[in-house]
């Protein structure tokens, strides 16, 4: 990403990180993408309700600033591993929503040709090595990708997204340890939304902050308010710099909240309406970012409205694309199990 010019930078000297670091166009694009993530998931939820999507899905509504902030300093060649709650990561890393919708609809034009669905959404060309249905499954894989980067000297940085639930999996601990021992260019991003399905971190996790666990692996552990885009992006920026300099991994804990339930089976018996309402009304990441952009003079109401309209159009077009796309034929069920060899 480019940076703001010197004169502009001086005028923003007292503003939070992203307003000093990035251009107005870049920041408006971030708002666009945060809306795109939100509307994509609302569109997916609506399509599910209409019976156009089967199976289940895990919505990250309320976590958009976390996905966008972490991916902000990444280049197209950098890589991520994602989670079952990974739609935001996928869009933040550059995926097209039309091909994501197509995947959710099980169509051949989807990113995984209809074989993966929501839980395995990926966009390898843009560096998303895939969402993962196994909590913690992507963490060692990200360390492996970082080992490739180091061995092949590609300079790539790898981000592993996971949730608070994953911090109690053995894979988390084994992977962090190896990344630290080998000083690999990987960033561990725990999006702590307070609940592993229904079990709160207070009931499941011995440490108060998941970032505290970084000390056990001799790496920086950084806590950010995951609903404030600038805070997340700043932490990510520093971690990326550290990784690229060969200084090793960082654990970032991005404290956030999912507005929706765990998945479509959630009866919401483990948290109160008041708690959800508070996060939705007072700490919505898009509202917070939008307010800052407006306050600091990066955008006006007209500009915001234009973004909303454009996003709505992209979502509508994406759903139409998915609907119109062909389904795979049942004769192709065995494809992609093994590499086709001549």
């Amino acid at each position: 990403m480019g940076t703001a010019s010197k004169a502009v930078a001086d005028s923003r000297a007292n503003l939070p990180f992203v307003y000093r670091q990035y251009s107005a166009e870049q920041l408006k694009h971030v708002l666009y993408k945060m809306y795109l993530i939100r509307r994509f998931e609302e569109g997916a939820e609506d399509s599910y309700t209409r019976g156009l999507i089967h199976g289940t899905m895990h919505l990250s509504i309320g976590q958009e600033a976390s996905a966008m902030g972490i991916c902000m300093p990444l280049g197209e060649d950098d890589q991520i591993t994602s989670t079952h709650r990974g739609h935001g990561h996928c869009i933040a890393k550059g995926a097209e929503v039309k091909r994501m919708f197509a995947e959710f609809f099980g169509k051949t034009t989807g990113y995984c040709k209809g074989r993966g669905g929501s839980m395995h959404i990926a966009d390898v060309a843009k560096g998303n090595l895939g969402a993962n249905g196994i909590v913690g499954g992507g963490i060692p894989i990200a360390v492996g990708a970082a080992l490739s980067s180091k061995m092949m000297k590609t300079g790539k940085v790898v981000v592993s997204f996971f949730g608070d639930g994953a911090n109690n999996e053995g894979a988390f601990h084994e992977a962090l340890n190896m990344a630290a021992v080998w000083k690999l260019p990987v960033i561990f991003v725990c999006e702590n939304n307070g609940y592993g399905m229904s079990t709160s971190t207070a009931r499941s996790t011995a440490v108060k902050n998941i970032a505290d666990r970084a000390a056990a692996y001799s790496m920086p552990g950084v806590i950010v308010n995951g609903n404030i885009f600038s805070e997340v992006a700043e932490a990510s920026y520093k971690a990326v710099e550290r990784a690229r300099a060969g200084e090793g991994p960082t654990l970032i804990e991005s404290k956030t909240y999912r507005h929706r339930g765990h998945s479509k089976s959630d009866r919401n018996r483990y948290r109160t309406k008041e708690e959800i309402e508070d996060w939705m009304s007072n700490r919505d990441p898009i509202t917070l970012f939008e307010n800052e952009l407006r306050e600091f003079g990066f955008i006006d109401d007209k500009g915001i409205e234009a973004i909303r309209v454009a996003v709505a159009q992209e979502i509508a077009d994406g759903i139409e694309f998915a609907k119109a796309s062909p389904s795979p034929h049942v004769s192709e069920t065995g494809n992609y199990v093994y590499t086709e060899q001549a």
Partner: protein
Amino acid sequence: MDAMVRELSYAQAIQEAMAIAMEMDERVFLMGEDIGVYGGAFQVTGDLVERFGTERVIDTPISELGGAGVAVGAALTGMRPIFEFQFSDFATLAMEQIVNQAAKMRFMLGGEVSVPVVMRFPAGSGTGAAAQHSQSLEAWLGHVPGLKVIQPATPYDAKGMLLAAVADPDPVMIFEHKLLYKAKGPVPEGYYTVPIGKADIRREGRDLTIVATSIMVQKALDAAAVLEAEGIDVEVVDLRTIRPMDKQTVIDSVKKTSRLMCVYEAVKTLGIGAEVSAMIAESEAFDYLDAPIVRLGGAETPIPYNPELEKATVPQVPDIITAARDLVKGVR
């Protein structure tokens, strides 16, 4: 010019294959527990660290799940890791990465990626290592689409199949019987491959087909030599690959001999012998059978420590001789 053929042990053959693979392709590297200066628990990597350095012969922490995952991630992003499990039993710690990730990644992503990882598993009983270091778990992994699972039985095949595995774009799991590591056999110098998915007829015969895997191949050959003196002519098929299985070679053999016995060390129930038997029962070879199919497999028990008990839990040469004799003479 033909490559020079020497006598090498099975372990030396594997080590030579890994060295050749690393010399040919800088993406190939080794990972595992104590495979560096220690040389591996069974001295298979030996002194390779001196030749290729610690950056390509990587000692991992004792973290089978994480280590396997790192190998999967490296393979997914362009490297060609060969991951050594210290004992095949420790696959149980890494099943998540093997079964959910390595095996399914290509499929889940619609063919957009491949995972060219090789995992090596020292397997089997006979070393007095008792129940947690002696298992034969190849059928567990053989049950998973997306994996290829091989069991070379000779030094020649161990080298050639490992080189084929490294060249393969998909995850290949190699089960190496620990008692074979010191077995010697002819191995050509230089690069050659033995195809994955092809069985090998190790001995031709008319009266009975024995389909054997891994260390049971040699035991079947030893039994066949004894039976020959009694006028029983045994054909020994070395399955070599359990997924994807070479069905045709087995079918053709059974059509010729009209009798089938499967010999394998893993627990008999739900093992590779069940699969081979069912495959024959479903094939045109069924009509050629003159006798019921016989399976000789491991006992329905963990592997015991006591050496006599340990031997008794897996098929031995006299067991094969007796069962073959009974089968051919119609005692069963």
